[in-house]
């Protein structure tokens, strides 16, 4: 298996086959909270891709150069990653506010939201401990490029589903739905059907 193909499979597996929202059910609160309009879901998606990539890069460095050599990673990775990601998002927010006000206006309101987003923590954790959330028991450690590709895959998968779902919810608003199902209930049902559709990708290949 050549390198490029392997990276593609890693990306595809992270984004579609093991989709973070529909297959692993992580980060469901932004999935339902921000998916009411296409515009906000687009803003959220771009912010998530950006923050997830940065968070994983920094967490990977912290894991491989601090936590793992000291032998404390196995029980300290969650507090340290939360600390790192929260500070990072704060830092990025400040930098963007100073350097690019238009970008801040587009992404600003989503950045604090992402600080506490479990998908970001999940991606960071998974890229240093692969298979942690899927319980696959893969004894494999990602190198930096692999971790990066994996994270971008997760973030793109998140964005893809969020945007598709937001588009669908905009249509649902207009549809003649029975009164009891209006709003969130029908969204849950739709998400379940969506998830079933994505199950079709399961077992496409093993990595």
């Amino acid at each position: 298996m050549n390198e490029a193909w392997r990276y593609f499979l890693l990306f595809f597996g992270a984004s579609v086959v093991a989709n973070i929202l529909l297959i692993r059910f992580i980060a469901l609160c932004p999935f339902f909270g921000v998916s009411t309009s296409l515009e906000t879901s687009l803003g959220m998606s771009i912010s998530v891709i950006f923050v997830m990539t940065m968070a994983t890069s920094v967490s990977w460095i912290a894991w491989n150069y601090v936590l793992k050599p000291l032998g404390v990673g196995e029980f300290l990775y969650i507090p340290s990653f939360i600390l790192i990601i929260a500070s990072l998002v704060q830092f990025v927010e400040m930098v963007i506010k100073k350097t690019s006000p238009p970008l801040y206006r587009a992404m600003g309101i989503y950045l604090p939201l992402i600080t506490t987003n479990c998908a970001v923590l999940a991606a960071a954790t998974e890229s240093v401990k692969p298979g942690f959330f899927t319980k696959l028991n893969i004894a494999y450690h990602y190198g930096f490029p692999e971790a990066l590709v994996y994270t971008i895959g997760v973030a793109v998968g998140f964005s893809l589903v969020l945007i598709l779902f937001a588009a669908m919810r905009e249509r649902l608003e207009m549809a003649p739905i029975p009164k009891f199902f209006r709003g969130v209930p029908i969204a849950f049902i739709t998400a379940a059907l969506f998830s079933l559709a994505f199950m079709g990708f399961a077992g496409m290949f093993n990595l």
Partner: protein
Amino acid sequence: MDWTLVWKAIVSLAGFGILLGAILAVASRRFHVETDPRVAEILEALPGSNCGACGLPGCEAAAEAVAKGEAPVNVCRAGGPDVTVAVGRIMGLEVEVGVAQVAHIHCRGGKSLSPPRAFYQGVNSCRAAHLLGGGKACPFGCLGLQDCADVCPVSAIAFDEEGIRRVNVRKCTGCGLCADVCPRDLIQMVPVTAKVFVRCKSRYTGKKATSVCRVACIGCRRCEKACPADAIRVDDGFASIDYDKCTNCGDCAAVCPTDSIQVWVERSGHPEGGEFVVPEKKRRPRREEGGREKPGAREEAPPQEDGEPS
């Protein structure tokens, strides 16, 4: 117990904390952005519902625009005079306020008064239904679907007992979003002091109007003649009131033959803050079955009607 591991854990986590804290402290200095302190104050004074009625994306943008002087202090239509005064005080301006406004829907022809001529099952939106003519007999009346209630940022628009839309004046902030969205142009922003309403905008006149709705304005001009303040005009088939001149006397409602003009009476116990009533008729009782006027009843007509040259 392995104490070195405990020390390592404490040192590494504390190290992270101190390092990141230091970076953030430096960054907050380095990347500090000077903001106008008035922006925060104005934002505090604004309602914060981000309704967008001012044409700016949300209250924060409005606050910034006011602080920069790009928007007037009365930018917030939804907040009404209180907010205008508060914002004016922050900006150091004395503000003279006009009367707050509320939305009013000019239709009262519900299910029983204007029966449906078709069963509309399309997209649940007045704007869509209007393109097809809607299911209602009256082509000018309220379709009673979602649009105005959807855009209302304070959920002030509900159904009335007849299945058409009704504004809850207690909740309405006067932002005017519903008036912009109504495809039949039925919603008008009126001063809160207004008490008399022409609750119809049917361009049909006479029998044609009453054939589609029992409470339609037939354009008879009796109200025009009855008005002592010259505030009501019949134009394009329906009456409309100029609230700058209206004195809320209710004379027009008292002569209206189809009861399309009604008077709003405040009731403290009522969930919507009041209700529409038809005042006691000054003339003959309502015409029965389209019969001709009885000559005897005409003597009870108000003096305004007689004094008017015809």
